[in-house]
């Protein structure tokens, strides 16, 4: 059997056992639900136009029109209900059938009835409607024929900026998902390494393959699973967002999502290798936290910087960190989405990350080999390097 055959077997086992793992299933469902929930929330909060019902006593079509129009200017849809008299108006307001009632709109002493003074939205609409009516009436009496104001044509000088804002938002969302998945799958890798060590099954495994094959198989297997999960989320997110009209600029979304997925591959490989090597130093799940903390902190820092970068993608901090291995997978997608990163910068960041991965795999592979068979207590990094297959 070829060297690759063993890697494939290890990867296959990782995937098939993890897919049936309760923790994995639950986390997948939660993430998908979160993405869907977020979209629904966006949809509801974005398309929400408030409505206001205003009762009118002795109204004319002009009154009704004036109310609707003055509602429009403040973004409120006004429904007008005809009421018989003042008593009916008071009753309707009291019952909550209408938000406000307008009496004698065209007369000399118009009156607005509201339940309490806190509902100034409806009363303000009524007030401005009365004002408008009064002006129109007075102008009409002076013989002025009122022309409606001309429609305004808005000229947007930088339509791209609109897309960039959407893209940054999408990138930010992507980075949140990416951060979650990096932590999740990094943990999976680490737990798997310690499980093999603590159950001593590693001794049987290493009698059939080399440590690098085990390490590679583990990282590849879980990585494919993570990638599948990310792509699923991305597809659901993009299709859902476009279908529900949450975002209006598909060209801003798709490339950003693709870059997030690509950066996941780089980021995951880096973190999975570091996590696996760190985990190989301990032999009990309880000790895992202490060796993973430094790496987890790096991830958290990357996440925080990426949040900052979303606000100010051109900042020095964002620019510098987008080249730092371990940080760039979280920061660079945001800068790219904001249109702040030049092509050479992206290429350079990718190369730096690839180089970092090569170094981690090379040195880490030695640590992993050295530490894997030391199944008692914690192994020091230096000992592991010295003891490679000792």
């Amino acid at each position, binding site marked *: *059997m070829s060297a690759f055959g*063993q890697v494939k*077997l290890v990867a296959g*086992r990782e995937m098939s*056992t993890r897919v049936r793992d309760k923790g994995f299933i639950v986390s997948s469902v939660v993430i998908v639900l979160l993405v869907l929930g977020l979209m629904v929330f966006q949809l509801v909060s974005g398309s929400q136009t408030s409505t206001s019902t205003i009762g009118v006593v002795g109204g004319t079509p002009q009154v009704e029109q004036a109310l609707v129009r003055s509602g429009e200017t403040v973004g409120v849809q006004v429904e007008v209900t005809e009421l018989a008299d003042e008593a009916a108006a008071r009753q309707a307001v009291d019952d909550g059938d209408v938000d406000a009632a307008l009496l004698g709109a065209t007369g000399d002493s118009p009156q607005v009835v509201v339940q309490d003074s806190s509902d100034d939205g409806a009363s303000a609409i009524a007030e401005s409607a009365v004002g408008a009516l009064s002006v129109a009436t007075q102008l009409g009496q002076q013989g002025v024929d009122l022309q409606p104001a001309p429609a305004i044509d808005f000229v947007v000088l930088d339509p791209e900026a609109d897309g960039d804002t959407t893209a940054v938002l999408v990138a930010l969302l992507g980075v949140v998902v990416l951060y979650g998945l990096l932590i999740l799958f990094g943990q999976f890798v680490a737990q798997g390494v310690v*499980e*093999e060590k603590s*159950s*001593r*099954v*590693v*001794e*049987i*495994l*290493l*009698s*059939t*393959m*080399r440590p690098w094959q085990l390490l590679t198989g583990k990282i590849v297997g879980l990585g494919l699973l993570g990638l599948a999960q990310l792509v699923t989320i991305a597809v659901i997110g993009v299709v859902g967002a476009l279908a529900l009209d949450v975002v209006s600029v598909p060209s801003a979304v798709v490339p950003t999502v693709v870059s997030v997925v690509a950066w996941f591959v780089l980021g995951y490989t880096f973190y999975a290798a570091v996590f696996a090597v760190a985990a190989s130093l301990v032999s009990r799940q309880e000790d895992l936290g202490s060796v993973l903390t430094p790496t987890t902190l790096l991830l958290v820092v990357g996440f925080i910087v990426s949040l900052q970068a979303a606000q100010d993608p051109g900042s020095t901090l964002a620019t510098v960190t987008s080249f730092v291995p371990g940080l760039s997978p979280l920061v660079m997608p945001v800068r790219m989405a904001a249109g702040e990163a030049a092509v050479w910068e992206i290429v350079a960041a990718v190369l730096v990350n690839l180089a970092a991965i090569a170094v981690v795999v090379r040195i880490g592979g030695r640590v992993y080999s050295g530490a894997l*068979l030391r*199944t008692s207590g914690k192994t020091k990094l230096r000992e592991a390097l010295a003891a490679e*297959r*000792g």
Partner: protein
Amino acid sequence: MLEFDGLVKAYGDNRVLDGVGFTVAPGQMFGFCGSNGAGKTTTMRIAMGLARADAGQVRWQGTALTEATRRRIGYMPEERGLYPKMKVVEQLVYFARLHGLGSAEAKAAAEHWTERLGLADKRDQRVEKLSLGNQQRVQLAAALVSRPDVLILDEPFSGLDPVGVDSLADALLEQCHRGVPVVFSSHQLDLVERLCDAVGILARGRIVASGTVSELRAAEAGRQLRVVVPDAPAGWAGAVPGVRVVSEQRGDTVLDLAPGTDDQAVLAAALATGRVTHFAWREPTLVELFRGAVSDRAVAA
């Protein structure tokens, strides 16, 4: 032939192995004995590529073991090792495939060995749910599932009840009959004596005695004779030259004969006392051989 040749291994100043060498023929069951910390596990781990020898090598059919040939070895580590959360049959299929079996072949082998070792109804259980005895059986199945060419087992009998010992012994003998060389280490010397064609005793990094059990017995200097003469007076044998009385109890006498002593002279002396109900060479048990071998070295060192 499986040959262990001149293995040397030191951890710092501690020379664990100092030229360990022995050979195991196909179909031979080799019992590997030694005190705790003598280096049995290290020797086996070197064979499995889990530790690197400072000098010496392990050969199978004349060539040093490689990654590929090691996959044809069934191995049971001292510490054991199974995935606790994996189902029995999946685990066995995985190990079989790691040892180079195809998918269908591996499935059939896993079915066969679970059946054979009485785990048929446990196939779909997670290993962590099994009793220790059953986990041990799964461990053995993991070593056997790939139809290995060689078996190397570190303390396979420890922790087994007598029934488990018997079924494991049967399984190992069956492998020997297939022509597989089997090496196993054990502290249960009676078991080694019962099962093994050949024995190697490891003490302080060297094989201090090896060969078949009868060879070891023959090599033992100062042979012992047990003579039962019910009517003899006490001290009847003391006069025979070259004979030392080890114990004497109502005519049941154990005598230590110096090399070159004529056992027929002893018989004549015994017959002179009257009835002789028992006259035979007393075979030292492996335990006695082991003690002798280990302590000889201790004195020499």
